[in-house]
């Protein structure tokens, strides 16, 4: 039994299953919902299976077509990829359950194939070790995300999606030009081979600039964040959850990999610039979030701020390595679960009250306790209060900053948390009070509430799992390999 379980090729299944599922949903819209839910569930199982294999045998490696790099394409998964895949699968399952209630009729038939293709793109992205192949996964993910944003139509969503599309295409092209320069400089598009061959040259510096800028644009790093709040806030709630939790993390993952494998030793101050922009994003995003009167816009600006934390890790990691990178990975994971939960909860409140104006939230804490609870727990993780996953991530980051005496960054980390506390409690405060304009509530299915709550509890639970998660993250030493060939 155990042998059969470990022999199943889970890794490639993570790509093929959602692709096949998406095609089935496209062909037969009548069974789209069931096919989608089954696929999301099987993907969770597959990640568990892959995790089992990785724990047993170490890093996962699959040479597609049997050729192997540099001629062929390799799939590769270590602890970092595994955690990203796990976050994708869990958020994906939660969002799928929520969506099965959220989308109805025609919209349901349109949502599922797009979402399953997005899931396939995310899984393929986290598994790929080939920078040209990563370009294709980026495009697949970007196009799917754009259409999902515009799914329900409407002026805001359409213009948000259009801006998002232009930004994501521009980012991809900049990235692709970087790929071209690296390929023509070193004769390979495989990350491990590039890591072994790379040395400073004008082409590498240009590639570093192009790829960092292109990916930062797709991530929405300050000051490239202009497209993010309109797109994330105007999309349907489950889509907002996917965008904020996963879609902005995927290009960050690529950037992280590129730095760890290729650019790390050649950074030449770019890390300081990224750190500075990250710090600016933390402050700007938090202040903007505090100023918003619409719940989903508040959450979208909060995403801008939380992305900033990931970049604060760059200058710290170049100096000290492991702790700061672990912090970034942990924050990425924690934010994925927490923000997905909060967007789903916001979707429930929106559906319940017919609006998402923060001052007019009418005693939702009594009338929609599970969703409000999910929002609060997610908020705890975003603020970084113990015992949440966000606390562990911020603590690790703070530790790295303190040990290097980077007082400016220490101040930013703490100030960002205080501001986050302010905007989360601003929402919760209104959740208790009676609004001046009462409204006719609309029922929210229990599945939609529980999906949000369970994701939020996951974000909290992550705080108790620090040592196993960090041990998992160490598999394959993703954070030690920088600049050294395989």
């Amino acid at each position: 039994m155990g042998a059969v379980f470990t022999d199943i090729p889970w890794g490639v299944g993570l790509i093929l299953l959602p692709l096949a599922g998406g095609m089935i949903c496209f062909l037969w819209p009548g069974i789209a919902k069931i096919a989608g839910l089954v696929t999301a569930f099987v993907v969770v199982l597959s990640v568990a299976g892959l995790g089992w294999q990785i724990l047993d045998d170490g890093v996962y490696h699959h040479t597609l077509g049997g050729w192997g790099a540099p001629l062929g394409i390799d799939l590769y998964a270590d602890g970092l990829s595994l955690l990203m895949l796990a976050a994708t699968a869990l958020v994906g399952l939660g969002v799928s359950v929520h969506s099965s209630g959220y989308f109805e009729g025609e919209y349901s038939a349109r949502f599922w194939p797009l979402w399953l293709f997005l899931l396939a793109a995310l899984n393929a992205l986290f598994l790929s070790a080939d920078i040209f192949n990563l370009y294709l996964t980026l495009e697949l993910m970007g196009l799917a995300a754009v259409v999902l944003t515009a799914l329900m139509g409407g002026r805001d969503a359409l213009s948000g999606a259009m801006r998002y599309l232009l930004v994501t295409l521009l980012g991809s092209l900049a990235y692709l030009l970087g790929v071209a320069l690296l390929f023509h400089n070193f004769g390979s598009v495989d990350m491990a081979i590039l890591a072994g061959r790379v040395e400073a040259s004008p082409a590498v510096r240009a590639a570093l600039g192009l790829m960092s800028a292109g990916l930062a644009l797709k991530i929405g790093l300050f000051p490239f964040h202009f497209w993010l709040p309109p797109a994330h806030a105007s999309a349907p709630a489950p889509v907002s959850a996917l965008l904020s939790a996963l879609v902005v993390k995927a290009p960050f993952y690529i950037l992280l990999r590129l730095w760890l494998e290729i650019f790390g030793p050649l950074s030449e101050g770019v890390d300081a610039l990224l750190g500075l922009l990250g710090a600016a994003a933390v402050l700007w995003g938090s202040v903007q979030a505090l100023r918003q009167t619409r719940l989903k816009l508040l959450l979208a600006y909060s995403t801008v701020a939380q992305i900033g934390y990931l970049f604060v890790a760059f200058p710290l990691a170049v100096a000290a390595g492991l702790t700061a990178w672990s912090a970034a990975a942990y924050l990425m994971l924690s934010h994925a679960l927490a923000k997905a939960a909060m967007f789903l909860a916001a979707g429930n409140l929106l559906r319940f009250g017919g609006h998402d104006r923060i001052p007019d939230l009418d005693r939702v804490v009594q009338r929609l306790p599970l969703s409000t609870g999910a929002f609060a727990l997610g908020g705890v993780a975003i603020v970084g209060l113990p015992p949440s996953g966000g606390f562990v991530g911020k603590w690790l980051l703070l530790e790295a900053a303190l040990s290097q005496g980077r007082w400016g960054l220490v101040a930013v980390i703490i100030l960002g948390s205080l501001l986050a506390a302010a905007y989360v409690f601003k929402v919760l405060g209104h959740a208790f009070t009676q609004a001046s304009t009462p409204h006719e509530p609309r029922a929210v299915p229990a599945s939609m509430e529980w999906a949000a709550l369970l994701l939020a509890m996951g974000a909290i639970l992550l705080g108790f799992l620090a040592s196993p998660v960090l041990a998992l993250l160490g598999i394959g030493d993703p954070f030690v390999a920088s600049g050294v060939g395989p």
Partner: protein
Amino acid sequence: MSAAFAYALVGVGLFSLGLYALIVHAHLLRKILAINVMGSGVFLVLVALGGRTREAQPDAVPHAMVITGIVVAVSASALALTLMLKLVAETGRAELPTHRRE
């Protein structure tokens, strides 16, 4: 000066020209054209520099990559044009609304 570098430089020129137009122009059709010109520039860099082999045959891998890229580009363009038309039908303008503080 070998042809590989000359064409690669033209590619860089196209990329920069497209980027400038993408930023400067407001009309969405023009922005979509700009993205396509940028893409052609990137493709030109990819293929042209593949001609630096000492043999007569250029490197086939970038050729395959560019064929892939061309198909991706037409997919993205089709989607962008549809989205643009939908936006025009909704708002009556083929431009993105200027960013306003909310």
